[in-house]
């Protein structure tokens, strides 16, 4: 048990180190500004357009259920019209970015790991290298950039639809006064909540892209290796998103207070 624990920790640290190296390589490659635009556009299409339904449904139903639950509690203390404000703040700074990040990790992170993993086991990545193409330039940069661009937009959509769906449920089903409700939401939602959400989305995009690419490019042999890489990409990026979210909430809150 003791030895397995030691091996586990050293493996985990090695993985972290190698992801950091991949991030450095990617950054260096970005700095050369030789981005393959065609690939980038295709990846944005794949990440952004193809994730619409998943993200919108998640956002809408999360917003509605959050609104209903908040209303049930607030109704007891006659604070009905504060419901939408609570929904809005939590969607903007927490639920919007986190749920969108998790959905995209499941959809896009898995696809990236599977695609790059298959390329690795069929020697396509080696073939790229023999054709004097750096795998980071050609494979990682477009995917990571696409996630950085698409995830904040997807998050914004999910926040907007979540709030609006909650507003509809609140006014039409639960009988909350629409004008006061809307007014309270605008009054209590700070610009900083939105900023926090967007910063988080940007960070989560990086996590999904880096973990997916890392797992794919370092995947084990055969079909089993690809399968494991895919699973691990989803699991590790989801867990990292949840953990990072906590620390971002703490640190960004402090930071924005200081400003």
């Amino acid at each position, binding site marked *: 048990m003791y030895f397995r624990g030691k091996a586990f920790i050293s493996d985990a640290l090695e993985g972290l180190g190698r992801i950091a190296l991949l991030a450095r390589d990617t950054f260096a490659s970005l700095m050369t500004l*030789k981005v*393959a635009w065609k690939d980038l556009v295709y990846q944005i299409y794949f990440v952004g357009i193809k994730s619409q339904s998943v993200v919108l449904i998640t956002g809408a139903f999360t917003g509605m259920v959050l609104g209903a639950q908040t209303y049930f509690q607030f109704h007891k203390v006659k604070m009905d019209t504060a419901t939408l404000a609570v929904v809005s703040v939590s969607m903007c700074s927490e639920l919007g970015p986190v749920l969108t990040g998790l959905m995209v990790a499941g959809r896009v992170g898995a696809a990236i790991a599977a695609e790059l993993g298959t*390329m690795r086991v*069929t*020697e*396509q990545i*080696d*073939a*790229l*290298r*023999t*054709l*004097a*193409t*750096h795998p980071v330039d050609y494979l990682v940069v477009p995917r990571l950039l696409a996630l950085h661009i698409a995830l904040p937009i997807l998050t914004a959509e999910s926040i907007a639809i979540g709030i609006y769906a909650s507003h509809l449920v609140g006014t039409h089903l639960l009988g909350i006064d629409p004008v006061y409700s809307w007014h309270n939401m605008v009054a209590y939602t700070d610009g900083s909540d939105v900023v926090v959400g967007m910063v988080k989305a940007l960070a989560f995009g990086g996590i999904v892209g880096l973990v997916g690419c890392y797992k794919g490019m370092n995947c084990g042999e055969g079909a089993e290796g690809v399968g494991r890489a895919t699973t691990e990409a989803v699991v590790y990026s989801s867990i990292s998103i949840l953990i990072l979210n906590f620390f971002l909430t703490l640190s960004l809150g402090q930071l924005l207070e200081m400003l």
Partner: protein
Amino acid sequence: MILVENLKKSFGSHQVLDDVNFEIQAGESVVIIGRSGGGKSVLLKHLIGLLKPDSGSVKVSGENIVPMNERELLRIRHRFGMLFQGAALFDSMTVAENVGFAFRRDPSISEKEIAQRVAEVLDMVDLPGVENKKPSELSGGMRKRVGLARAIIYRPEIVLYDEPTTGLDPIVSDSIDQLILRVRDRLNVTTVVVTHDMRSTRRVGQRILMLHDQKIYATGTPEEIFNSRDPIVKRFVEGVSDPKELYF
């Protein structure tokens, strides 16, 4: 051109190469033979920096490529072409995109010119008109030839072929051998071929290296190797299995 010194490589506890030494001259064609699983593909990948040895050096025109990082290696790899044993075509692209991949981001050459050169090399490997097919629609032998086209289209100085004729019918095999020779003579290409195919060894090899027991066991001209008295070399070129390996 290529100088390999004291090359050692193991995967875990499994030693694949142990102290391999040889030199390949510019413009020469060398055939590497050896038993299946003997480490020929592994050796070939070391020559282009796809694998790093445990110790030893690989020098290309005097430059040791072993300590180079991936970005420095890109410069060296412009001079190489490589055909993989399993062809390793990009399966999300068409044949034309695969073959023209090396020109993808070269602004000095127009789309039309690329298409024309792709058609030319596809013709050279006996596959005219497959430009718009996906690799998955091709047979194993066809894929191999597309891989070959992709490796030679940009006229590299050194071409590494990993079993170029395995899985091809005798007639196409012969035409691939001719193509390898033509590429070598016309463009003065340094050629390294890994193969089990004794007919093509005879045809394309100016010098033969036999990999056995993790080392270069024998080297010589085709005549020397094919007339060798050494029992191991003789058994290999004549294709005779060891009697004690026969169970049934």
